[in-house]
């Protein structure tokens, strides 16, 4: 089939539609009466809920920090976790701005990149977690101390300082210094730009699901459409 034949087939299709396609007027009336909500609305409220959880975590950590300010092991751990939740919170706010500013009359590549970014939200978390690998001891340090402060007998001696035999600082500094290169390397690798690498594809799928992997693949396709000669 030649191109002119395809075009003339399309014209036939146009004429058929012109002759028999009808729109239900009552539905258009409902739309213009603004009785229909956007399908992005649930996503917006999910991000709001996430932001509230992140703020609650930060509030808990600030209280923890105030109570344990004089003990550097706890205050340093709490501060690094506050930094973690702060980055996550900023990310949620950024996503809310994208949703609010979503204007479908922009070009396809721009809008679809924004939407794919929203879909790949869990990938941002996965990247953040690997970036915080060097501060991995902070989480058990804070959690065990908080449980200990609840005076539960079975947790009486189960704080990280006791568990590391008083060498918490040595363990922390050693873990941080040795894991910084790994954290930074993983953070840079876990991007849609590296989807051609099998381990990156597998990691994204296992940590964030198939949907996120597909969104990342779409981001890569859009990026190449916009910026590369095809």
């Amino acid at each position, binding site marked *: *089939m*030649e*191109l002119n*034949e*395809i*075009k003339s*087939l*399309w014209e*036939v*299709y*146009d004429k058929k*539609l*012109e002759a*028999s*396609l*009808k*729109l*239900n*007027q*009552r*539905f*258009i*009336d*409902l*739309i*213009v009466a*603004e*009785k*229909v909500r*956007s*399908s992005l609305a649930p996503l917006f409220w999910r991000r709001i809920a996430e932001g509230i959880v992140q703020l609650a975590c930060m509030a808990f950590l600030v209280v923890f920090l105030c109570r344990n300010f004089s003990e550097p092991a706890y205050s340093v751990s709490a501060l690094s976790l506050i930094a973690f939740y702060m980055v996550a919170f900023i990310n949620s706010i950024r996503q809310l701005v994208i949703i609010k500013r979503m*204007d*479908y*009359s*922009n*070009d*396809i*590549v*721009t*809008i*679809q990149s924004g*939407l*794919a970014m929203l*879909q790949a939200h869990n990938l941002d978390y996965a990247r953040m977690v690997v970036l915080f690998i060097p501060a991995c001891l902070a989480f058990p340090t804070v959690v065990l101390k908080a449980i200990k402060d609840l005076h539960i007998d079975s947790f009486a001696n189960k704080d990280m300082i006791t568990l590391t035999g008083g060498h918490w600082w040595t363990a922390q500094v050693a873990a941080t210094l040795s894991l910084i290169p790994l954290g930074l390397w993983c953070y840079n690798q876990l991007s849609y730009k590296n989807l051609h690498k099998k381990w990156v594809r597998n990691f994204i799928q296992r940590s964030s699901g198939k*949907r996120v992997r*597909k*969104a990342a693949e*779409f981001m890569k*396709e*859009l990026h190449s*459409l*916009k910026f590369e*000669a*095809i």
Partner: protein
Amino acid sequence: MAMTDKILFTELIKENKGIIFKVCNSYCSSKEDRDDLAQEIIYNLWKSFAAYKANFKFSTWMYRIALNVAISFYRKEKNKPHRTIYSENLLIFEEDSTPNTEEEKNLRLLLQFIGQLKEIDKSIMLLYLGDKSYRDIAEITGITESNVATKISRIKEKLKTNFLTNQNNFYGTK
């Protein structure tokens, strides 16, 4: 929004309803999905209508929104609940259950082949067949004119090959 805007919007939608149907038909295989998508497209057209500038061709503006909504709709998870708010169909179009003429069969094949294209390729082909210039297609899609030209030529080849393969299979089995 003013009453005149509502009337104007309704008129423009009626005039260009074919665009909505073609986009929905290319991105959705089931009637329910097609109706859901049509609702979402009209909702977003109405939401953006206040910002529509008359110096921009309405069909071009409409294509941008319809295709953006369709691609994001298509990419959503499957098995999602339908959001139809209205029990009646929004788009009413009776298709021939069995194509009789050669032309009808070819049209059905063409629609099937377009439906099988990748999301962005589908958009480009719909715009191309909708008589949009390369410049318009580049503006709507956000890719360069030269990339549009390359894409179109590849898609055309693919469609030709699909028709040829189908023809060979048909005569081969006869």
